[in-house]
């Protein structure tokens, strides 16, 4: 288990390094952030794979904070290769989420036997992908808002034809699809295990439902003419915040400093 923890500490360190490059380097040297970011993603992948290895065939409990930076980083890898796209927001998101996981871990719960079914894994993994997509949509929406506020007329004109305004909605459609799959998998798992599609033992089911209804609402906004791209971008940002509050915060534990004993066992 110390391998899993150390790998995540390593990932967080390299994410922090990448963030430093993005924040403080200028010119061509800014692209140096890619090296530490890729190393971080690889270490994060090893940590996530290790967490699964040490719990399979059971589902690892409260592991979302350790998987989320990996999925966001991996899903945005194409964007981070693009010179024009902003790197600050995605790298900041990955770095801050990984640091939150380091300082507020809740991964000490043991997996339970009832999670031995493919539906529990589908529930967990598609849930993480869904959350990652919603947060990425928020990042794109912030980008779009920033571009809208840019005072250069040329930039605004360019923006009108740009693909950027649709990016947030696209990610939200993907997120909604994965979130729905996660909720349905949870429903089937709950029925197989306890004979009912809803188990009232965990209040988090309500926040998961709230997130689903919020994005269902978002997907209907374009049918109202008053909701233009800019307003919908604000809604996407609010959605990302709600996703973090509703579905990320509940997987966090109390503040604790990283366990250095683990580091020395490497």
């Amino acid at each position: 288990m110390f391998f899993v923890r150390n790998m995540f500490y390593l990932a967080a360190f390299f994410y922090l390094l990448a963030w430093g490059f993005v924040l403080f380097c200028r010119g061509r040297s800014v692209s140096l952030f890619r090296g530490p970011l890729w190393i971080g993603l690889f270490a994060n992948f090893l940590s996530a794979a290790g967490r699964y290895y040490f719990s399979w065939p059971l589902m690892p409990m409260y592991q979302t904070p350790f998987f989320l930076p990996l999925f966001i980083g991996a899903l945005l890898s194409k964007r981070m290769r693009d010179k024009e796209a902003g790197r600050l927001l995605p790298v900041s998101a990955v770095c801050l989420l990984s640091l939150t996981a380091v300082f507020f871990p809740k991964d000490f719960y043991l997996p339970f036997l009832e999670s031995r079914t493919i539906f529990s894994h589908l529930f967990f993994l598609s849930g993480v992908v869904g959350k990652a997509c919603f947060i990425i949509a928020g990042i794109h929406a912030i980008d779009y808002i920033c571009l809208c506020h840019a005072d250069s007329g040329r930039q605004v004109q360019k923006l009108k034809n740009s693909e950027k305004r649709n990016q947030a909605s696209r990610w939200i459609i993907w997120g909604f699809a994965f979130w729905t799959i996660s909720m349905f998998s949870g429903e089937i798992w709950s029925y197989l295990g306890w004979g009912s599609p809803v188990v009232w033992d965990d209040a988090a089911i309500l926040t998961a439902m709230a997130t689903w209804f919020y994005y269902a609402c978002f997907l209907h906004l374009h049918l109202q003419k008053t909701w233009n791209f800019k307003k919908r971008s604000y809604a996407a940002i609010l959605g990302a915040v709600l996703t973090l509050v509703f579905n990320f915060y509940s997987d966090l534990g109390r503040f604790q400093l990283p366990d250095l004993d683990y580091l020395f066992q490497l």
Partner: protein
Amino acid sequence: MDNSMKKIWKALGSIRLTIMLLLLTVCDLAGGYLSLKGSEKIFRPLNDLGLIEWVNTYGRTYPGHTVWFFMLFILLFLLSVNTFVCTTDRVFLLIKNRKYFTDSPRFFLKFSAHIMHYALILILTGYLVSYLYAVTCSTMIIALKQDVMIPGTEIKTRLQSLSIDYYQGDRLNFLNDRACKVKADLLLTSGSRETNKTIGLNSPFWFKDFSFHLDDFAPRYRSGMQRKPYISLIVKKDPGMKLYFAGTLLFLTGLIMYLCQWFLLQPKKGERV
């Protein structure tokens, strides 16, 4: 339809109402989270008692904790009505405009969103039927070689054998000497009919409209104080189950169709649809 009916129909199917109801549902669920957290014991019996009995007992006793649940009920009902009216309008409009579609796959895939909307109504109806009419017999404990009658039925259950695999290895340290897999063989008798069934965790079986789910078992540990082998079952007759799973399947079909429409039928640059 006369004019006032048309107005009511239009108001019930408006998108503004959809957005308002969805946002209210989000707020209600967020409030529900705060209410449910720490007081799960109030809602846990909902699955066993059914909605009516639960409302008359827990629902009335703890109104401060359950008010969000009643609000959710009203909101979901209104949302279902709104979804039905709005979707039906759009489906009729789509059928009316069929001649504008040059290829039938494109026309067919246009129904994807509507399928998802109808599926949602089906799922919600299934849940309602389930909470109103399901019969549950929870924690039915059966010891090895013991016969137990399922209350209110003619079904007799006998635990023939119980096989438990205990984990031994280095990978899952926490599971060492603890049960990792369980399989119980049951003999079910109803009148002159006898059937053998096998049950496990997350692997229920169905017999005469009843579903049998393994809730608990013993012994869970290989070492330590030995407990008498037994299993605990949840037996449920749920008339809503087929509805909500049909709705789930339909929703997924609509979702796949929507993604197909999105990917395969995206108009190319300069192409007219």
